[in-house]
Each structure stands twice: as C-alpha cells, then as structure tokens.
C-alpha cells in the first residue's frame, strides 16, 4: 500500500470513527450538550434539543445560563467557577431547565471541562438526565412524611415508637402531657416504665411471645390498660399499636390516649343509671306495699278510737282510785265501757280479716322459686344497704302452687324485710339471710326465711297478733295480714327460733291440683 493509499485509507478509517461517534452522540438515550468556554452551545443531541424544544440553530444562539431557571443560575455559576479554577474535575448539579415554551423541568447534569487538545479550544461537556418524575415522587414523599410528622407532633395522644427490645425510640410532645415525662427522658428506656408494676411482667412476656410466635396477647386496636404517670399516679389509657419493618428490624408505634375523663363520665353515667334502677326498684316495692300500707293506716285510725276510749276510762278510774273517790257504780260503768270498746276493737280486726279473705284474688299456677326470685331481686338494694349476706337454697323441680302472685310477693317481702330489720342492730356476727324452698313431709311446698337477727325470744307465738310489734316504728299488722293471706291460700305460716341466732318464718302452700306431689 502506497503512502498515499495508506493516508487515504487512514483518512477513510478516521472518517468512519468520526461517523460512529457522531451517530452515537446523536442517538444517545440521554441528553448530551457541548458549549464553548463562554458557555454558548455548539453541539447538542436530539434528546437534549427535544427536552428544551429548540432547533439546533436556535439552541446555538444560547448559553447554558439562558436555558437555566433563574433561581438555579447562581449555584450553577459557582460550580462552573470552581471547575475553571481547577478545584474540581467535574460537577454534578440538579437544576431546572427552562424550555422554549417557558415550562420548567428538573434535570441532573454531569458537567466536565474538556481541556485544550491539539489546537482544539477547551469546551464544556454536559450529560443531562431528565429527573422530573423522580423529583415529583421525592416531593410527594416529603409531603407525606411531613404530614405524618405533623400529625404525630400535634397529636393530643402520646405517640411512642419501640424497637424489638421494647425500648423507646421516639416519643411525641403529647407524651409529656399524658405521662409527665419529657421525650428525652424516655428515649432508650423500656416501655414498662410507663406501666404500673402489675402490668410489666405481662407486657414483657406478651411482647416476647409476639416476637417469637406472632401471637398477640392483647388486641392492638383500642385496648384499655392502665398507665403510670411520672408522679406515680395510675390512670386509664386506651392503646392502639401498629408495626412496621425497617432494614429487617421491627418498629412498633403506639397511640396512647388518656381516657381518665371518659372513664369518669362513664362512671358517672353508670352511677346515675344505678340510681335510677334503685329508685325504680324502690318504687316497685312501695307500690306493692301500698295496698297493705293503706290498709294498715285505716286500721290504725279505726282501732285507735276504742283503744283511746279504753285508755281514758282506765286512767280516769286509776286517778279516782288514787284519791279514794272511785264509787263502785262509776267503776262498773267504766268497766262496762272498757269491755264494750275491747269488743269493738276485735270486731274491727275481724272485719278486716274478713275483708282480706274476700279481697278479689287472682290465683294462677305459680313456680314458687320464680316468685322468690322476683322478691329477692326487688330486695337487692335493701340487702346491699344493710350489709346482708343472702343465701338461697331453692329445691329444683318444685311442683307449681295455685296462688296470687302479688299476695305472695307481699308476704315474702314482709317476711324478708322483717328478717333484714331484725339484723340491722347485729354487729358481732354476720348478717345472714337464708331463703329456702322445698317439699315438706306432707307433700306441701314449704318456704322458709331464716335470719341471724335478734330473734323472737318468748314472743314467737305473739308476733301474729294484730298490733304486736317489736319494731320502734312498726304497726304490728304485717305478720297478722301475712298469715291471713297464706291461710287464704290454704297454707300455714308460723315462726320458730333459728339456731343459734334469729328466727325462722316458715310457710306452706298446697301443691296445685293436677301436679304430681
């Protein structure tokens, strides 16, 4: 090959290389631009041109500063200066380009200064990547993060994050308000310092089990627990926890809400409801007793008249006797009147008994255990108020009796109330009230009410006498009327001493016809 040929071949080969570079430059998937030392573009590939929307000839009229967003120019110039001064070999910048149509987009530019070489003046070489999408994602992520940070910072609940050893990683400002600790007092400390002693072991074992088995020992959403404030005060909290994994480590974040006030409100509402229930029960009791109470009041008035007359006559005789002025005929007349008034009083009682027997009754087949249950429910308040321990021994499968539910209520209320009242003065032994039901030897249904009260002493037989009472405010009619009511059912009611203390009132009721006895 001649020198000329060789030179020609060489020229051809270098033309090939030149062509290849140019093609590579032009069809690169990334923007490439070159600018002279003054910053004016003299070469740019199609990607770069398309980014900015300029034609080649338009672009070559412009410098890099012309297409750089005004706000980013200063930073860019600074980097260029450092490069010129030899402080750097190249630089990277994220900045906004301004398109021909005025719109902005983000790019990352890798810029190097190509030094003077073989007579070719030094120039700028920039590789430009459109990073608008990444920037938008970043901004969105930052916004989201900021949003969550704001939520946590301003939350009124304590927000606490834990690592896998249950040590506190983060605590928000509300933590101070809820627990009394500043966040920095908590970081690195175990979560258990915010719990009362009795919950700590529970938390530790529960937490460990969760880490190893994934089994939760409490509900993670809205569980009510007890918190411990810095000042030692315990208070109710509602806790919700969530979990996320970061670099293979699990982080737990909890929202802890102080629910003292809510609890207090709930407590007050409960108390109000209880008060209403108590009142209702009391009302029910009173309304059931009213019939008996009204009866007793009218009896009191009617019977008081002859009693007053008996007293007046007797006292007059005693006074005359004391002054030795009592004439036999005066005495006789007074005694006659006394006898007449006594008879009148008994007649009133007899009339009332007859009235009670005649009172319209509605007899149905009743389960005595059910009736007892109803009465005990009505009396619950009285038991509680008087510190009475109730023990009921109700035999199963008791055949029904034929009875008036309201009358049996009245009798049982009366017997139980008597038992309760007989025990209010007892302080040296438990106040026990037994209520029993069973079938007795003769096949009747027997109900017994026992108390551990003061007992009846020698007066067991007299308690059924009208106007006999051992109570300061008693009318002395309850047991008398009760006995009439039970006798009206074909049953019996009697009293006997309880051992070692108190009294037993027992009543029998015949089993309803057609029931196996």
């Amino acid at each position, binding site marked *: 090959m001649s020198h000329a040929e060789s030179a020609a071949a060489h020229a051809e080969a270098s033309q090939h290389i030149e062509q290849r570079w140019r093609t590579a430059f032009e069809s690169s998937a990334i923007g490439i631009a070159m600018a002279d030392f003054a910053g004016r573009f003299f070469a740019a590939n199609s990607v770069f041109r398309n980014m900015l929307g300029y034609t080649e000839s338009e672009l070559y009229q412009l410098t890099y500063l012309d297409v750089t967003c005004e706000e980013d120019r200063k930073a860019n110039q600074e980097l260029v200066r450092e490069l010129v001064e030899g402080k750097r070999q190249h630089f990277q910048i994220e900045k906004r380009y301004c398109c021909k149509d005025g719109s902005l987009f983000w790019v990352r530019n890798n810029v190097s200064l190509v030094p003077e070489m073989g007579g070719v003046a030094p120039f700028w070489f920039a590789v430009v990547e459109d990073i608008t999408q990444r920037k938008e994602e970043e901004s969105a992520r930052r916004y989201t993060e900021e949003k969550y940070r704001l939520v946590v910072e301003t939350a009124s609940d304590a927000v606490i994050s834990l690592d896998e050893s249950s040590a506190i990683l983060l605590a928000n400002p509300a933590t101070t308000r809820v627990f009394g600790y500043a966040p920095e007092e908590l970081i690195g400390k175990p979560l258990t310092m915010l719990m009362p002693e009795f919950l700590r072991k529970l938390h530790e074992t529960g937490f460990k089990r969760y880490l190893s088995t994934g089994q939760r020992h409490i509900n993670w959403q809205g569980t009510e627990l007890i918190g411990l404030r810095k000042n030692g005060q315990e208070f109710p909290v509602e806790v919700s926890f969530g979990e996320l994994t970061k670099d293979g480590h699990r982080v737990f974040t909890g929202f802890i809400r102080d629910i003292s006030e809510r609890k207090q409100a709930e407590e007050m509402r409960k108390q109000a409801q209880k008060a209403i229930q108590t009142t209702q029960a009391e009302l029910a009791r009173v309304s059931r007793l009213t019939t008996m109470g009204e009866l007793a009041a009218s009896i009191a008035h009617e019977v008081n*008249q002859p009693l007053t007359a008996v007293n007046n006559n007797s006292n007059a005789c005693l006074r005359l006797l004391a002054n030795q002025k009592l004439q036999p005929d005066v005495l006789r007349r007074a005694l006659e*009147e006394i006898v007449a008034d006594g008879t009148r009083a008994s007649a009133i009682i007899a009339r009332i008994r007859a009235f009670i027997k005649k009172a319209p009754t509605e007899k149905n087949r009743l389960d005595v255990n059910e009736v007892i249950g109803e009465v005990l429910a009505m009396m619950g308040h009285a038991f509680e108020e008087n510190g009475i321990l109730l023990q009921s021994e109700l035999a199963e499968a008791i055949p029904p009796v034929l009875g008036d539910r309201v009358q049996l209520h009245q009798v049982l209320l009366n017997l139980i109330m008597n038992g309760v009242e007989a025990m209010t003065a007892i302080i040296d032994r438990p106040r026990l009230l037994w209520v029993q039901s069973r079938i007795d030897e003769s096949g009747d249904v027997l109900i017994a009410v026992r108390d551990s009260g003061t007992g009846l002493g020698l007066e067991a037989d007299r308690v059924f006498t009208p106007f006999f009472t051992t109570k300061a405010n008693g009318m002395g009619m309850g047991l008398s009327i009760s006995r009439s009511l039970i006798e009206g059912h074909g049953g019996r009611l009697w009293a006997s001493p309880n051992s070692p203390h108190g009294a037993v009132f027992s009543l029998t009721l015949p089993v309803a016809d057609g029931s196996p006895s």
Partner: protein
Amino acid sequence: MSHASVVFVVDDDPSVRSSLKFLLSSVGLQVESFESAETFLQRKPPDAPSCLVLDVRLRGLSGLDFQHELAARNIRIPIVFVTGHGDIPMSVRAMKAGAIEFLTKPYRDQDLLDAVRIALEQDRARREQERDLTDLQQRFDSLTPREQEVISMVVSGMLNKQIAGELGTAENTVKVHRSRAMEKMHAQSFADLVRMIEKLKGPAKKAS
C-alpha cells in the same frame, strides 16, 4: 284552778267522747261534750275560762276548719287537738293557727291533762287582762272632758303651770282637776297613772 272553768269536748265517736268526759272529770274539771262543731256553736259562748278538746276528723265541719270558723267569729278559745291518724302537715297547720297541742291517739293521759291545764290557764289570763282593761276604760270614761284633757297633758310630761297656760286657767284649777282624776282612776301615784293611760292606749293603737 278556777271552779268555773269548763272543758268542751268535741268528738264524733261516742265512746271516745264519754271516756274523755270521764277522764277530765276524774281530775275535777267541769266538762261539756258535743258530737259536732255545729252543736258546739249553738251554745252561748261561756263566760268562764274554757278550752276545747277537738278531734281533727269530725263528721261535718272538720277540726281544722272549725278552728278557722272560731277565729272568724272572734271566739278566742284555746284548742287542744287530738287525732286518730295525724300527719305532720296537719299538725303544723293546727299549731300555726294557734293550737295549744296536737296529740295523736292513743295519747298518754297526762299529756292530755297537761295540755288542758295550759289551755285553761291561758284563757284565764286572757280573760283577766280583758277584764282589767274594761275596768280601766270605765274609770277613764267617768272623767269629765276637762279632767281627761288635763290628764293627757300631765302624762305627756307638761308641768301644771304649762297646762294652765295652755288651757287659760289658773294653776290651782289644774291641780284640782288633776287630783280628782287621780282619785277617779284609783291611781296610787303619778307613775301608776302613766301606766294606766299607756294600757288604754295600747289596744287602741293596735286597733287603729
């Protein structure tokens, strides 16, 4: 206790009524009994210390209404209430209207007798006071108009000389009027006279 005093029992229950009469008689009291408020009102008001023992629950006019009726008729007689079935509002009403006592049957006889004694004593004292006042008024009325004039001036603190000047008479004439008036009023001293005139003025003032 005055022999003339009378206890009136008003109760519609015959055995209570008669036994009450017996009890009150046994301590030497004079007793009249009535079965209703109406029959009591038909009787001429007594001229002697007296009181009422009254059942609250009467047929016809009730005890409490009766108490008002008596007050309306200006019959001032102390009342002891008895009741077979009294409640607190009822007793408060009765006591506010001036009852001596409110007893619930069956009461202790001593309580009743004590209440009756207090009632009679109160009525006796009231009557005595009224009688004194009537006497005094009669004595004052027996003075001549000039004597009454002089006495009013004396009591108001004027000297004989001033009174004489006021009435345009001699001081001696005033002295004569004054001593005659003192005599007619049965006044022992000047202070006594002042008390009498104050007493006479008292109810008159209240009435006006």
